């Protein structure tokens, strides 16, 4: 049985559906584009600078850590670029360069690579980077302070800060339509509600994120906010306001649904999403931080492994 024609042998299956990490990353970035472009048009060149620097440095850090740890160069899979883009979207347009560079370092190296790289991170790398920066340099994330020199034709007051300090009387200027169309101050890529929703629906339809997480996250925020609102309408904002301000929408579609740090079974996904939603509103309404999305999702990342143990019984499992 000797034959010199060399054939490829490998294990079944011999087909693949053609999905890949690269496709996933680039399409997630594509879905984020409406919101990012809107942010760049609103805030101008500084915003473009922050986003570009963030993406570049996320890639550079990934490249360096690949070199240092002597692993295959993995920047081609687009995951680092995605981390950079999402990180840039959360930042205010006036962020100084060193803040962006430090943040992407924390996100890519401490958030992702020290756990073994893609798939190993227990927390969302973007949020790790952002949370550490937010705790370390609080002033750079006070949107009222950092965006004070902008006059864009709408109330340049951070909506969540307004409701926190002034109650619902402070937010009468914000109509739902304005919020949807991005007439509010905030992070570069997180104010354009409509754009984020379109991007999110695209990701859900393409199957790149799990709809259960996004929907339950939004439902968690809506229901909790509704309960607060009903108990004291003068103090606590309406659910619609909570859904369209701060990092809610970017959190629902781009941050909470990050693959590695979220569950994959149906019931755990609902618990995870709803839990993050409830925590968000609790932090916003009762906690000391203005926005709670970042810490709420990080907190739920923590329970993800144990939560994901709630799973259907496997075929033929006797116990």
């Amino acid at each position: 049985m000797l034959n010199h024609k060399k054939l490829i042998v490998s294990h079944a299956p011999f087909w693949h559906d053609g999905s890949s990490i690269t496709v996933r990353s680039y399409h997630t970035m594509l879905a984020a584009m409406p919101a990012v472009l809107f942010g760049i048009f609103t805030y101008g060149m500084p915003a473009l600078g922050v986003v570009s620097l963030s993406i570049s440095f996320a890639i550079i850090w990934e490249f360096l850590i690949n070199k240092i740890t002597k692993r295959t160069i993995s920047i081609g899979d687009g995951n680092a670029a995605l981390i950079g883009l999402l990180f840039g979207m959360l930042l205010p347009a006036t962020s100084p360069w060193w803040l962006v560079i430090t943040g992407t370092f924390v996100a890519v190296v401490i958030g992702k690579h020290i756990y073994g790289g893609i798939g190993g991170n227990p927390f969302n790398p973007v949020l790790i980077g952002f949370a550490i920066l937010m705790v370390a340099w609080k002033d750079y994330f006070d949107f009222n302070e950092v965006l004070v020199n902008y006059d864009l034709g709408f109330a340049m007051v951070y909506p969540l800060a307004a409701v926190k300090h002034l109650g619902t009387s402070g937010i009468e200027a914000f109509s739902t339509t304005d919020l949807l169309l991005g007439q509010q101050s905030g992070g570069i890529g997180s104010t354009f509600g409509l754009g984020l929703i379109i991007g999110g629906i695209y990701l859900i339809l393409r199957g790149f994120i799990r709809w259960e997480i996004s929907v339950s996250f939004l439902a968690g925020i809506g229901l909790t906010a509704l309960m607060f609102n009903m108990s004291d309408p003068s103090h606590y904002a309406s659910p619609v306001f909570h859904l369209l301000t701060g990092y809610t929408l970017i959190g629902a579609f781009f941050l909470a649904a990050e693959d590695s740090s979220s569950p994959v079974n149906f019931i755990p996904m609902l618990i995870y999403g709803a839990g993050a939603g409830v925590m968000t509103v609790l932090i916003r309404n009762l906690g000391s931080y203005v926005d709670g999305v970042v810490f709420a999702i990080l907190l739920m990342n923590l329970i993800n492994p144990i939560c994901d143990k709630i799973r259907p019984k496997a075929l033929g499992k006797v116990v």
Partner: protein
Amino acid sequence: MIKRSFIGLTKPLLKYEALDVSTPEPSVIQPSKKVTLFLDKVFDFKDKILFNIGDKVKTGQKLSYSENSDAYVISTVTGTISSIAPFNADYGKTYTAITIDVSENEEIDEQFSTLVKEPDIDTVKDSLAFIPGNLPAGLFPSTDASPPIETIVISGVDCDLFITTNQNTVLVDGQAIKHGVKILKQITGIDNIIIVSSDHLMQDAGISGAEVRVVDPEYPASLPHLIMRDVLGQVVPAGKNCEDMGVSFISAEAVASIGKAFTEGQIPLYKHFNLIKKDGSSTLISARIGTPISDILNAFDVTLNEKDRLIIGGPMTGSTVYSEDFPIQPDTDAIMVQDRGNIPFVSDYPCINCGECVRICPASIPINVLVRFLEAGQYEEAADQYDLYSCIECGLCSFVCVSKMPVFHYIKLAKYELGRITTAEATNA
């Protein structure tokens, strides 16, 4: 190759090939020079083998390995034995490969025709183990310890995509199946015989006289474990097989072969299978067991280049071979040729926890966690806590894996390694 749909929210739809009446007759291909038969026995030079190089054999002649062994093959041609050699197959399985040079004049061995008058279980066991469609060993449990078989399920559906062998048998060989069912009932004493078929072949399956049940036309519904669950309403416990539940699966082709053997007084030699070409078209072919694949590829002008892939079986569950001299075996349902440009490769990326595999797994296994244990070689933990043995081996996890991990390969490897550990422990105890 079926790709992920644009709307990735829905599961990929993998339909089994549906055969209809307009399908042309299978093309018959004759072996050109030689055939190779695999005898299910480890080859040992010290054994007193009952046949030798240079022996003349007739078509239908039984070649037993030795006095102390039940293993045998049926020669499918008339000719001279030109070599006897060991052959190593997948997962450490070893066969004795017997190569026979085909001579021009065909002579039929008469031994079997004397036995057909009164079919009994020994005749079937001693003469028909090598029939097209493969006689399952589990049909006749040898030890008293194993539970008796109470139900026989005839598979009128095909186990993988692109394959139409069993459907074709149901469609054209209804009478042979009917006779086969009668003989099976007679020799085993089992009355509960069920034939499963796809929706559109129900009428044809009804001719067999067995009870007809319908199976979903969507992969992987025709895998035995899923037929057990969805059609018979019995769940096979993890780590057990269908025979442990008293159910034996047999392909429609094998039943038809049994029927034909007893009506014609001659052991059937022609195996039906599909040739899946590089462009994805599928042709039904009939060839003698033992025909080298190269003969079939030559007949259909399929050129095999360096670094192409040659697969025995379908795209999801088949196995690759390294040489086109590999023969058609009794259970070869398809030969698939993949061009080197179309081969999807696996990668060494880790699991990114996207959950595609978990959602598509028909056995609800937490593959995202399981594969992490398997990567680390912790097979026992994987089996104890993460349902390794619930796997029914459909291959869908690897098919959808975003990281292109060889998930199915890991699972098979883990089962094999655990099997080896168990055997070693049993022998050393």
